[in-house]
């Protein structure tokens, strides 16, 4: 089938050097057999007009005066062939990928209800700038998803978004036919989100095609002039608020106060951040409040800045003194801080029961949420008679997927990765010893241990040296107390070949799930909450020899049991994986597919919405 023709509209106003570079890269990387380039000269006063006249492969639309961004682009759209799709392309964009237009076109025509397609934009220094946009009704300040993250090829799939910036926007003709061009109620700014929202009302989706990445210099013609920018921005913001304020607010179908922890490097905090994002995306108006602090088992003040726009806005919301529904997401001994009229306690633990204090406080809740059947059984075994709902956590498949770029070992060694906090539960010493004994130094196999130790009196270095690992045994490399930005962790997983989680018990095991989503085969103890999402088809379950009393520093474990992973079986699995790399890689691939199909944060958010609907 002949592809539909596309008109690429490049709007320019002075700054010839930008336009020239844009057109050069466009020409070098675009098949113009089914496309034409329309350059709108928006009343330039420099050499632009003369230079454009010299270029034979473009069509020039000239405006005598500067019409502004919106009307200038509309002039280009009006000049496009009436049956062609239109691509708006800023003149400060560079193209470095062949086939970019074909890929955007294919994404646009993949479904009849896709109307607008954007792409990933990166800054010239390589940082990600844009993978879609969102607008919160609290602030009416559009935000770019992924902005300023180090580019590790996150957001690589095609996904639905609320809006995109129109530095590059593929618009299908059907959308233009139905809603017209950009709204001239705006002179500049907000017109892109307005267009996407109008398209949505007309039945069209906006997507970002992650397979295309363009470079955006962000030299907007007004952003270099702060006073002009501020005036235009505020004028457009007011217009936008009048048009869309009530409609954006109406997308929230539920209100929840979420009492938890956000700005610490803990499992609850990291997952809380994702839950809040997932809830917002699923139409839950969440107000966040810190649940710990004075008079709690964790009497530390929380930093107010989450270093994330969405999370900061959610933290600034006030849920009221007695919200209708409140969820305490944290350890069960802070459940009683729940201030809701319908009180939910959401927790997890790594052993086969729950402490008496947690159960006592759980009894005061209207219902309990746990991520796994393993923990539901633990609560029931501990005598809780309240309803216990299994509410699984999820994984961010935009930052954890097999296409994330890692840094492979240049020597080609097969690399195992273990990632844990030093302590009794994670069986660090067993992993090191078994690995060291299983392999010989001369073998092309390495274990990387990412170790965090937050317990100052513990001298991890001395403990490792005391293990007297054999110099002729398997080689081990340590990353000790290195915190990586969360958005880059996928790159760590993609730098290795197999993930090892051989601990005694897990409350969920987010790193394991993230590694699996990245397509890694894994060796994981066959006991604990993570058995909710781990099975033999996608992982190598590590046998246990039985259950043992959970002796550790954590007071919550006292009186309960956890697993005794079998070191002989771990040795067998280490060897088996290293010698059956294709089989292992296939398991990793199946793991990634299963995580994306069943265990995303979107799934988790949907489950929360289902439950909130049942409560309403």
């Amino acid at each position, binding site marked *: 089938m002949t592809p539909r023709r596309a008109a690429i509209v490049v709007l320019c106003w002075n700054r010839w050097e930008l336009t020239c570079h844009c057109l050069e890269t466009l020409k070098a990387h675009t098949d113009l057999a089914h496309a034409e380039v329309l350059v709108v000269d928006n009343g330039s006063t420099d050499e632009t007009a003369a230079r454009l006249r010299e270029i034979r492969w473009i069509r020039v639309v000239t405006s005598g005066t500067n019409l502004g961004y919106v009307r200038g682009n509309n002039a280009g759209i009006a000049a496009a062939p009436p049956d062609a799709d239109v691509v708006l392309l800023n003149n400060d964009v560079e193209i470095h990928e062949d086939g970019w237009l074909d890929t955007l076109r294919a994404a646009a025509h993949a479904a009849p209800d896709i109307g607008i397609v954007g792409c990933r934009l990166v800054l010239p220094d390589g940082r990600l700038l844009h993978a879609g946009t969102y607008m919160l009704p609290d602030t009416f300040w559009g935000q770019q998803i992924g902005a300023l993250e180090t580019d590790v090829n996150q957001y690589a799939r095609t996904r639905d978004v609320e809006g995109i910036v129109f530095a590059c926007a593929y618009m299908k003709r059907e959308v233009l036919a139905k809603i017209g061009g950009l709204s001239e109620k705006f002179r500049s700014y907000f017109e892109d989100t307005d267009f996407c929202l109008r398209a949505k009302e007309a039945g069209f989706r906006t997507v970002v095609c992650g397979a295309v990445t363009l470079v955006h210099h962000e030299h907007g013609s007004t952003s270099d002039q702060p006073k002009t920018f501020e005036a235009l921005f505020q004028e457009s913001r007011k217009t936008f608020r009048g048009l869309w304020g009530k409609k954006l607010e109406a997308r929230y179908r539920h209100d929840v106060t979420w009492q938890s922890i956000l700005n610490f490097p803990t499992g609850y905090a990291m997952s809380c951040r994702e839950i809040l994002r997932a809830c917002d995306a699923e139409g839950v108006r969440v107000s966040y409040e810190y649940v710990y602090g004075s008079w709690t088992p964790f009497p530390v003040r929380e930093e107010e800045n989450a270093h994330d726009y969405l999370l900061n806005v959610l933290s600034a919301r006030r849920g009221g003194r007695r919200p209708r529904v409140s969820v305490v997401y944290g350890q069960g001994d802070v459940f009683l801080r729940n201030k809701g009229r319908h009180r939910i306690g959401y927790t997890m633990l790594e052993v086969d029961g729950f402490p008496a204090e947690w159960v006592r406080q759980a009894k005061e809740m209207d219902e309990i949420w746990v991520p796994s059947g393993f923990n539901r059984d633990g609560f029931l075994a501990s005598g809780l008679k309240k309803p216990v709902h299994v509410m699984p956590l999820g994984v961010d498949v935009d930052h954890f997927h097999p296409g994330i770029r890692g840094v492979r070992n240049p020597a080609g060694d097969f690399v195992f990765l273990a990632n844990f906090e030093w302590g009794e539960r994670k069986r660090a010493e067993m992993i090191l010893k078994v690995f060291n004994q299983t392999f010989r130094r*001369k073998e092309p196999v390495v274990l990387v241990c990412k170790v965090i130790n937050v317990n100052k009196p513990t001298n991890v270095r001395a403990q490792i040296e005391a293990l007297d690992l054999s110099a002729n045994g398997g080689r081990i490399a340590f990353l000790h107390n290195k915190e990586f930005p969360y958005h880059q962790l996928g790159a760590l997983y993609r730098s290795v070949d197999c993930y090892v989680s051989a601990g005694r018990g897990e409350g969920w095991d987010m790193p394991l799930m993230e590694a699996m989503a990245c397509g890694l085969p894994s060796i994981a103890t066959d006991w604990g909450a993570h058995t909710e999402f781990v099975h033999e088809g996608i992982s190598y379950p590590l046998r246990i020899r039985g259950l043992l009393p959970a002796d550790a520093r954590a007071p919550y474990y006292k009186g309960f049991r956890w697993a005794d992973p079998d070191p002989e079986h771990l040795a067998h699995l280490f060897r088996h994986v290293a010698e059956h790399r294709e089989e292992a890689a296939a398991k990793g691939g199946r793991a990634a597919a299963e995580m994306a199909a069943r265990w995303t944060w979107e799934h988790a958010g949907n489950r929360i919405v289902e439950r909130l609907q049942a409560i309403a």
Partner: protein
Amino acid sequence: MSGEAELERLRKEAAELRALVRELSAQSAAAIAALPLDAALALARGGDASLDPPFRLEHWQETIEMTRADVTAEMALLWKRLPPRENA
């Protein structure tokens, strides 16, 4: 031989092997305990005290690094400081 009998035979064999390993470990531990310290350490390192350990701890971070590291740079560094397969 039926499947069940075969399974039983394998279980028995595995139990015997485990007992044998335990016995050998106990004997070796007793022998090592009787060695002078230097010789015991040399043995633990594979019989040659001149060998480097199979890990390197020189880039050790005792406190959690608050300025978060870049994965790409950190992994490139990690691969460079990996102990060699054979001692140099």
